[in-house]
């Protein structure tokens, strides 16, 4: 819900599928925020369940940094590119292009880090 919809908006801003009108994609931000809410809530539950597994793995901090940056870019996209309904599409794309590139790169990075977390942990529980 979060990355799929965000990637769609990013790719459109980068000039793919130009026949899709940009402004109505604003509706997808709600889906992204619901997705982020679910992921944040379940992520916190997982962290509480296995604190040692995550906190002893540097990949976990890389993942959180990338998520935080991607969410910051998401907020910038929503405010600066989709916030002004009078903005013509060419201006939206000009403002959004570099944000979109960073957004895609950060999400791919965050997902890869997340997958790596399942295989690189040192301890699942605190080693007594």
């Amino acid at each position, binding site marked *: *819900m979060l*990355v*799929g*919809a965000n*990637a*769609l908006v990013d*790719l459109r801003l980068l000039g793919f*599928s130009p*026949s*899709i*009108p940009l*402004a*109505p*994609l604003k*509706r*997808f931000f709600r*889906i992204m925020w619901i997705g982020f809410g679910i992921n944040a809530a379940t992520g916190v539950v997982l962290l509480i369940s296995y604190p040692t597994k995550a906190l002893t793995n540097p990949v976990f901090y890389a993942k959180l940094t990338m998520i935080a940056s991607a969410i910051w870019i998401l907020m910038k996209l929503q405010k600066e590119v989709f916030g002004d309904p009078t903005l013509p599409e060419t201006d939206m794309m000009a403002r959004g292009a570099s944000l979109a590139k960073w957004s895609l790169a950060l*999400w*791919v990075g965050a*997902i*890869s880090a*997340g*997958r*790596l977390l*399942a*295989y*690189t942990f040192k301890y699942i529980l605190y080693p007594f």
Partner: protein
Amino acid sequence: MNLAHLHLLLNHFPIIGTIVGVGLFLFSLAGKNDDLQRAGLIIFSVMALLSLPTFFSGIGAQGAIEKLPGVSSVLIDRHEGAATLALLFMEITGALSLAGLWQSHKFSRPARWNIVTVLLLSLITVGLMARVGTTGGDVRHPEIRAGADPAANEGTLGSIVHAFEPSPDKFTKLMTANKYWWAFMMDMHFIGLIMIIGAVGALDLRMLGFAKALPIASVHRLVPWALAGFAINVTTGVLAFIGMPVFYTYDVAFWIKIFAVLLLGLNAAAFYLTDTFKMVEHMGPGEDAPPRAKIIAASSLVLWFGVITLGRYIQSYQGTISGR
């Protein structure tokens, strides 16, 4: 029904289906019939999809018979190697057929290179599938075997093809030898999934009435992203299965997930092969899709979220199917 039974039920489809597909394709070229050609491409796509559960059920069939008297593990391995090579060609044929169907939607007919490549690959696939059938028959039917040890009594052509067939055990070890390779495959499986759900989800939501300012035709142009994502996921999924065949085979979540993927194929057929797609294809901003398009869109969303959820449950449900 057990997995051996499932294997026997499914294993005729890829063999006979590709022969029917090649027949339709050849007739379509001889008679310059575009509808027949599309039918051939559709059959290849369906066979590529059906070949997946056929391949996956083979390990369960092996588990059911390998300890019975008179069953040779050499013959089973030969059959599995043949099946792996045939699956590779079947999936490439299916992927190019889907690309051809997309081209015929966009430019009214497939590109010339597409027709030539699909024809060539489907002919090779028919040959390889015939070999899968023969080597599979050898496993359980001594009455048709060529000599006491068919693996040793292969003809020249059989030996040449056999040189290209992977050895199942070595392939399995190769996939799990490096944990970073495995993590990379799983990573690509996630990224493929996002490509699918981003494109299909947007189209489904639009048909259900969300973000109605978007014209459906323009959202539909995202479909190649979903097809590319699906190709990535079939590839990484099959490689993961080859890496841990026993883990996936005896897992109920895995099989329900595969069943859901097949249902999604059926759902796509209900969309594209009825007039539903023609009804929504040219809908502009603000237009409301008919109820049957909404039913298909809702089914697609539910099934894709089911596929994702079941994928996450595979780990916890390992060993839930008995038979080994």
